[in-house]
């Protein structure tokens, strides 16, 4: 995926024009007060992702590095897409993209880097997507585009809470 810089050092997702190669990019960095290896290992076990990604309904593995994601969309609808891992650098990054047959075109990378001092690890997600046309396109547009950054931001913060505090904060006072 393209995260190349142009005329400054800012990441692509912070640029005023956040489109490149036909993709729209969203993303976020969080600093998590845990060792890099631990965070990488938790993320690498993709089944763990549904513990902090609230919209994931199911993850079904279709090959060693391929998975079909069922994601809840607004108004009780669901969206499915298939991804494959294109690159893994241990304790550093995981890069994926949608398979050619997937109805949604998306690619993403999560990187893990040591934070300065003893602040832990900087985890950065960059996710690019192109909404498909037609009815599905409208659902996906709602899913991603209403506030494209909110979802990425919320999920990374939940990941941070789970890793640092061992639980995800909620004001809820009653079970169910």
């Amino acid at each position, binding site marked *: 995926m393209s995260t190349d810089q142009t005329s400054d050092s800012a990441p692509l997702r912070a640029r005023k024009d956040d489109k490149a190669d036909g993709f729209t990019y969203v993303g976020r960095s969080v*600093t998590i*007060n845990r060792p890099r290896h631990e965070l990488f290992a938790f993320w690498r076990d993709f089944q763990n992702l549904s513990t902090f990604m609230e919209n994931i309904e199911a993850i079904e593995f279709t090959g060693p590095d391929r998975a079909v994601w069922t994601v809840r969309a607004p108004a009780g609808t669901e969206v499915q897409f298939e991804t494959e891992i294109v690159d893994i650098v241990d304790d550093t990054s995981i890069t994926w993209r949608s398979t050619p047959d997937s109805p949604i075109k998306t690619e993403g990378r999560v990187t893990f880097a040591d934070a300065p001092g003893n*602040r*832990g690890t900087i985890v950065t997600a960059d996710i690019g997507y192109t909404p498909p046309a037609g009815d599905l396109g409208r659902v996906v547009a709602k899913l991603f585009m209403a506030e494209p950054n*909110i979802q990425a*931001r*919320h999920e990374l*913060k*939940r990941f*941070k*809470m789970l890793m*640092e*505090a*061992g*639980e*995800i*904060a*909620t*004001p*809820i*006072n*009653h*079970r169910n």
Partner: protein
Amino acid sequence: MRALTWHGINDVRVDTVPDPEIINPRDAILRITSTAICGSDLHLYDGVIPGMKQGDVLGHEFMGIVEEVGPNSSLEVGQRVVVPFTISCGHCFFCQQQQFSACDNGNPVENQDASEKLYGHAMGAAFGYSHLTGGYAGGQAEYVRVPFSDVGPIVIPDGLDDEQVLFLSDILPTGWMAAENAGIGPDDTVAVWGCGPVGLFAVQSAMIMGAAQVIAIDHHPHRLELAARFGARTINFEQTHVDEALMEMTGGLGPDAVIDAVGMEAHGFALDNVVDAVKQKVGVGADRGHALRQAILAVRKGGRVSVPGVYGGMLDKWPLGAMMEKGLELRSGQTHVQRYTRDLLERIQRGEIDSTFLISHCLPLEEAPTGYKNFRDKQNEWTKVVLRPH
């Protein structure tokens, strides 16, 4: 259970609501024995803090008996604890720096968005203090759910009454941190605006920290008298020009440090205050800042400004020139309660700090609405209200 709930401006009621339950592994449920109305609860009562919803349970100063614990709580059923108003995870960067009120993980992610836009960073979490700080139910109730119960609550040894330790949850450490932020040294004069609970604890703390002179400023004679009991000199701003008096009482130098324990609902009829009050009423997120402006003008060159008073929105006519030209230091912030509770508990046990002098009224929870009304309208007599749910 019965709980004090918010229904709108000047409208709080005691309602029946469902009992809280353990949700997360580090939770505990407390049976509340004592809870206080805080000066900052009046900002909610007056409707100047956004993010309140009908039916929200208020209260962020409370203590009680542990009734039930989650698997990762370090508390035990039956322990008697005081709970800090700040909900802090204990493990993030900020908690590790002891900046507990800045905790990254207490405020649920959905509730972080608004303050992230407003302040550039999401606020930390607190009990019973609007959805901006997490939307947690507060402790002016029979029971409360306490998240991260392994880091916040402090277990109270036998032999201490509720009245002696209740204020460890907020106003006592808040007054202490206000004095600490004023960087008090032995030859210093410290001026404190506001002799409400926080101001009075700031006066007491400044004395313990060794200030040569503490000057307390208010307009309620009884509150000034309470400050004088701790050895403070006093200025009644209805009778005296505060700025002139401070200069004369410091030999023309000005106080070395100033503490604004008033906050955004400063009273009084100074011109800037009236303008601010109008703006606050028309709802543009504005604060009233007469006390703070006066403090910044009064403090000596190179002095320190400490702001424990609660501000929520924007303030204009900020004396930035005075700030820069006089070379002032400004320190502020919601209290990092967990940083101070152990030390302050020991000081209470040694008899060094008296926290009971403040309590003017103890009421059953059912009478909480009367408590709110009088705490706001009769500030001279109703200096601090404690509610007893059980």
